[in-house]
Structure formats: C-alpha cells, structure tokens
C-alpha cells in the first residue's frame, strides 16, 4: 500500500444507525483496468462473513437487474445518482461500488451509496503498487472504515422454554428474568452458560454456542428434587437438549416424547 489517498465519511449518514440486516449490493466498476480481478467478490465474501447484511454480489445483481447491468454501470461512470438507481431496481438500500482504475498505480476505491438519498455516504480510496493485491486483512480494514461499526456487531437469538413458570434464568452470568421469558437477542458468535433454577427443583444447566444470525431453542424440564431416579433425569436432560436453527433458516422441531420406549436416542462424538 503506497498511501491512503482519501478517507471521507459524511457525518450525516455515519451518525445514523442503519439496519445491520439491510440489503446491500456490491458492484464493480472498472475504468480501463484489468488489475485486481475479483475484488468485488472478495468484498462480498468479507461482508458475508463479518456482517449480517444481506449481500448481493455482482452476479446476483445481474440476475435480478438483467444482462444490461454492466452496460448501465459503464454509462453511470461512477455517478452516485445513476448507481443508486441500479440499487433501487434490485431492492437494495445501499450500493457498495468497488472501482478499479490505473493512474500509474492501481487505484482502488470503495463508495457506499445510499439508495434513498442517491448520495455517497462514505468513500475510501487506496493506491496500490503494480501487481500488488490487498490482503484479506486490508480488505477488512477498508470495510470497517467504510461501514458503520454497528454492521460488524452480529446477533443470535436464544429461546428458553421451561416446564414450569417462575424459574430464574441466568444467561452468560447475567440474570434475565423468570420463566416464561421472551426470546433473548445476544451478541454472536459466543458461548453462553445457561442456568434455570427454582427452589425445590433440580437446577438445569447447559452451555450453548450461539452462531451469528442463528436461533437456539433450549427446552428445559426441571424435576422436583428427590422425585425422580438419576437415570430418568439423565433421559430428561438428554431429551431436553438445545436446538439450533441455522442462518439458512432450517426448520427444526425436537419434541420431548411422552413414551420413551418407542424411540431411540441419538448421541454422538467427534473424534
């Protein structure tokens, strides 16, 4: 990296807190340069990994917009007003325009264009020596300067269901109320210790790993102290379990069976 040429964040937009799950399309505009091939795709990959944004890559945008996308983009010549119309047509709230041009060095620019106001809300540019490709860490750094910090905070949801009301729920060491309790939206990825307790009942404890944009369901069945044999409590704990709905939206249902003799329990170990 020779020099960071321009770093401009327009305060008006930067101060707002945009939806961290908004739809963003990433487009690539080349001004007579064949350098840094696949740059837009790398931006898409980085955004998909580190944010909860709904990211449309250039190819997905082309599918939605039509084959004339590249021609339109060339005609826009980087003008925010024109590029915003592309974003509007594909239903995006923002366009990230990755520009590659050459002025001796390779100039890489990234503009964040707000589709609603048709204005550039942030812009970053870097000058790269010939045959230099930015590392993944550099791409991450560009994006962290381009996008609001809130975009890099990700969350998951934990739903806790217990068989009795009035049990105290502690998640990650913090009291969260008593059952029945609303779904908890918490930073992810992260591991949380969950404790559900009520006087006179065996305390339920588990540890869950919450994936970003995932949804965990913890079904806890608290047994009265001294009421059940140890192996029955073991069965209850195994069956209670923790459920995860992945980011892909898989529907998962895991019922606690009333008659255990009709079913086989699946457990596993990774070696």
């Amino acid at each position, binding site marked *: 990296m020779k020099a960071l040429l321009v770093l401009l964040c327009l305060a008006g937009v930067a101060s707002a807190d945009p939806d961290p799950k908004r739809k963003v399309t990433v487009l690539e505009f080349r001004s007579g340069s*064949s350098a840094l*091939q*696949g740059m837009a*795709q790398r931006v*898409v*990959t980085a955004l*998909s*990994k580190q944010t909860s944004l709904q990211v*449309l*890559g*250039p*190819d*997905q945008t*082309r*599918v939605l917009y039509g*084959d004339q996308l*590249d*021609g339109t983009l060339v005609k826009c010549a980087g003008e925010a007003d024109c590029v915003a119309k592309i974003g509007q047509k594909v239903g995006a709230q923002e366009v990230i325009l990755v520009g590659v041009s050459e002025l001796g060095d390779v100039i890489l620019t990234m503009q964040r264009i707000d589709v609603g106001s048709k204005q550039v809300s942030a812009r970053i540019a870097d000058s790269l020596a010939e045959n230099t*490709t930015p590392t*993944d860490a550099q791409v991450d750094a560009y994006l962290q300067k381009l996008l609001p910090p809130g975009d890099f905070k990700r969350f998951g949801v934990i739903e806790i269901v217990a068989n009795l009301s009035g049990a105290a729920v502690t998640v990650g060491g913090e009291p969260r109320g008593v059952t029945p309790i609303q779904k908890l939206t918490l930073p*992810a*990825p992260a591991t949380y210790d969950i404790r559900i307790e009520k006087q006179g009942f065996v305390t339920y404890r*588990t*540890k*869950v*790993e*919450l*994936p*970003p944009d*995932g949804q*965990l369901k913890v079904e806890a069945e608290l047994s009265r102290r001294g009421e059940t*044999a*140890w*192996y029955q409590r073991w*069965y209850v704990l*195994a*069956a209670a*379990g*923790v*459920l*995860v709905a*992945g*980011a*892909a939206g*898989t529907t*998962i249902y*895991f019922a606690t*069976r009333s008659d*255990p*003799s*009709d*079913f*086989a*329990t*699946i*457990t*596993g*170990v*990774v*070696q």
Partner: protein
Amino acid sequence: MRLVVRRLIAAATVVISACGTDSTGTIQLVLSLPPQGDLRPTGMATVAVGITQADGNENVTTTPLDGMQFSAGEVPLDEPIQLRVELRDNTNRLIAFGRVEQTITPDRSDQKITIPVRKPIIYVSSERAVVTLDPTLDGFDPKFQGMINGTTGSLAFPIDGSDIGVVNGGSLQRIATADHKPSGNAMDLQVTGASDAARVPGERRMVFATGGGLVVANVDTNEVRPLAMSPKPDRVAVGGATGSFTVYALIGRVAPPTGTLPCTGSSMVLAYALDNPNDMPMVVANGQFSDVEAAGAAVFASNPCTGKVTRIDGGGALSLNVAGAGALAIEGSRLWAAGSAPPTTAQGARIRIASVRLDGSDAQEVLLAPKAEVMTYDFDQANELSLNIHADTLVPLDLAVLPGAQYIAVITRMDSHRDARFDTFSASKVIPEMNALVHDIVLADPASGAISQRIRAKCVLTLIAKTNAEFPDWSCIETTGAETPIGGESVPTTVGALYGGR
C-alpha cells in the same frame, strides 16, 4: 472381604446396565475425522444430523458441539432410516460431511456407528497429477489447491467417505481420503482408457466406462469382471436397488458444440443388469445425449442439441430446459445440469446451472458471470496493451455438486475466434487473426450464481498470419494468485466431490 467387594461391583454393574439400556434404544454416532494434517476439519461449531425415513422425508436436527459431543434427538424404533451429518463453523459454512452408506433400523439395542466425516474435497483429473480443491478454505489460501502425488495422468472418482479411486492406464488404486495416500494394493482392471465411473449405491463396487467396455470392480475383494466388451461407453450411471442394480451406459456421447461447429452426432443409452451378465442389454433411448444419470428406477439424459434434460426410462415426467446441456449430476433429491448461454453483443457466453427435484418439480436456474479472457501484447513493457476477448462459446465438460449443494464445481471450455483488425486509413493489419481456447475450473454458489473461485487450468492463444501485423505477438495474460493452477497448466477432464453428486 475382596469377594464381597467384587460381588458388590458386579451387582452395581448389572443395575447400571439395566438402567442404561432401559426399554429404549440408543444410537451413538462416532464422527471419525482424519487424525491430523490439512485434511482434518477445524473450527466446527455445530453438527447437523439429517435423518431420512422410508417416505423420503428428511428431518435435520442441528445442535452445537459441546466440546466434541452432541445430542441429535430421537428416531422411531423399527423404521429404517438413512443418516448424514454436516459439521459447520460459526459462520454456518459447511466444513465437513459424512454419510452412513447403509440403511439403519433403530431397535432397543445400543448401536454404535462410525462415520468417516471429511472435508468436501473436490478432485480434478487431467494429464497431470490429480488436483484437490478444499472449498472450506478461501481461494487465496495456499492450501486451497493441492495435488495427490503419484497420480499423473489418472482419473479420480470418489468411492465413499473412506476412499477415492484413481485409475491410471489399466490400474485402479484406492487413495485414503484421510491422508491422500495409497490404500491397499492396485487392482488390474484388465482394460484401459477409462473415461467415467459410477458407484453401485450403498456398496464398494464401481462400474467403469473404458475403452474395453464396461468393467465392474469390487474395491474390497479386488474382484474385477467385464460387464460388456462393446460397444464402447463414454459415460456410465448405476440405478435400481439392492439385488437388481442396472448399469446405464451412454454410447456415442454428443458434446455441446464449440466455436462455430454444429450440434451433430447420435447416441443411445443401454441398460445392463449388473449381476446378470448373461442378460441382453436393453436400449433405453436413442438421441443426442451428452450425459446420463440414474436414481433408483429413474434414468435421466441431457441433450445439448435440443437443450433439454429429460427422464428417458418412460416413468414419471421430468423435462427441464437447459440450453447446451453438457453434464448432469444428482445430489440428494435434486438433478443438476450444466449448460450454456450464448454471448450477447457486449458480453461473452456464460454457463447456466439448472436443477430440479427428481419428481420434476421446483425447477431453478442461475447464470454464472459472462466469460472473457485477457490477452496481452508481448512486447509492451508497461503491460498496458491488452484485449479482453469474450467467449464465443462456453461449454461445461463435467459437473460435480458438493454435498448439500453449497457449491458446484464445473469444468468449462471457452472458444473464441477474432478476425484480424485493420487500420481504417492505411488498411494495414494492426492485430492478427486469433483463436483462443481456455479451460477453467469454476467453483460457484448454485443458489446465486456467484463464482467463488476460478482457476484457469489452461489457456492457448493461436495467432494466424501474424507476421504482417503491427502488433503481431499476443499471449494469454499470466494468471496470478488463486487463479493459477497448481503444478502448471493442463486440460482438466473430470471433476468429482467427496460425498457429492456427479
């Protein structure tokens, strides 16, 4: 005293056993990963267990890994099921896959099932050593591409989670998926010229399409027997069910046309009873077919000339429009096809990826990005003078669908011809006539069409009558980074994915 203690321990053991088994059954899955090295998956956060019941419905239970242990719910007793597992990282990326090849019937006993769980490695064959691609890594990772030593000029085909088969000449060598090292002794197939292979579902038998006909090989017993010496098959698929497997051989493959060539030729699909070699083969269909696939009783073929993928066994109705259909694959309950889209005035030709459920419902299609290749002028020291040549035709040569269809891998061939260009005023030739032939290995997301990684396997630029041109010498642009093929340029011939469809 010792006797008393022993009796107490024995009594306690009986009690624990009784409690542990109770009246319900247990299935303990042991997900066996490669013990070490780059092939061992890392960073897994969740495990998804997919249970498919006899009616074909699959329930997936996803749970976090607690240490290295997990619980995956319950299944009804006495009902046969099939099991698959997926390990994903905390970004929900698939990093390893495993499948129980045989049907399981849960009962009141304690069953322990070991499943080889592996990264969904992609294997690419060419005249060089077999290349591996690790889709769990970024393309820029130096370990994204790898090579299997000692496999020069071989064809590689996944057998199951434990082994891949590598055919070199008339020899079949198993390679362990855990370390990519030879496993067992090489088998003599007694024929050469293998062009395709298909696995007998649920078994460790492979059927090979070779220059000497169809050959069946049992990789466990080393038994090899010919199924049919002629006619010579180009592609092969195995359908049917245990005890009545049928081998479908495509004879006279009609490839999707390249350049300005027309779509010509004729082919047929023959059916052979796998375990009754004396039965006469049956003609399933005649046409212009580029590939054949089978699932159970259903047989599918792609016709690049009519742009159709159809079910050809007469059962069910499946007809999918896929212009230039050149390769098929079945993954799970879907049939996948790779075809082509022609160029436009401003863009090169493209690959299209279509899929449909095996019952003919839920057809989907995506187009990959338009294809072009940059040619540079050899004597421009500034490396600024270049031509961006769009693909006149871009055809799929082979297709693999990774488990869960998170990615597809396709081998493509681009052909382009450009007439010489002349100065308008002086009429002198500026750029010579040229032909470009480019082979790529493309890894793409079949849901969006986004290309995850492209490797330019080989680029050949042929200049015609260049000597009187002002700029006579041009070459394919040098590849950099992840687009550069490991081990040098070569023409890829087949692609397969561990636990995937092909």
